């Protein structure tokens, strides 16, 4: 199974984007993003706190739908899912 991780804005600069990540059965959204983010310590620290939880301001989406931070740890990732992780928006 493979999922696509898309980081945006500052997170993209630190970690890249459109990352094709292998996904094991039972993988959670938090676990998957944590594994990918560990490739860059600054990127990891921008997204996760000392306990390994998403920082309060981080926004997470799965297939275009918002996932609350509290639910990300129990949300399973399936084949072909698109996970987006980004900081607060600043358009306009």
């Amino acid at each position, binding site marked *: 199974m493979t999922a696509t991780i*898309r980081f*945006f*804005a*500052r997170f*993209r600069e630190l970690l890249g984007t459109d990352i094709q990540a292998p996904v094991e059965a039972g993988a959670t959204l938090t676990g998957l993003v944590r594994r990918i983010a560990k490739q860059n310590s600054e990127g990891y620290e921008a997204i996760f706190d000392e306990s390994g939880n998403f920082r*309060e*301001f981080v*926004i997470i*989406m799965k297939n*275009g*739908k*918002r996932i609350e931070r509290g639910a990300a740890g129990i949300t399973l990732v399936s084949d072909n899912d698109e996970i*987006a992780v*980004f*900081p*607060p*928006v*600043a*358009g*306009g």
Partner: protein
Amino acid sequence: MIAIQHEDVDIGALVRNAKENGTGAVVVFDGIVRDDDIRQIELEAYEEVAVPELRKIAREASEKFRLLHVDIVHRIGRLDIGENILVIVVSAGHRKEAYEGSRFIIEAIKAGVPIWKKELTKQGGRWVPGEHPHGSGQPGYHIS
């Protein structure tokens, strides 16, 4: 016209096109790259989510303020000082609805549409912090 695009937009053409039957007022919001001691600004969007969000905002504004026509064009990529970032054109029967509808749209975009700006300076760059720390793609961005 609801779009996220690199190209600039012909505001005059949008205004002409906004004059539907019954129009008594057209309001144009034109967000511009301000000279805050920067060289350029760079905009990035999660387009697959941002475009449907813009459509949803346009639909909600049309219903809430009885708008006759709505255009939202948000630009991405590198823009120079003075360039258009965001153009919103709305028409309505009366000015009150047109002004309020336009204001609703810009506030909703700032609150919830996944678009980001980076100011490019001589020293490097800095991401512009969002005004709404939790905003993105979920209900609840309505202004009162």
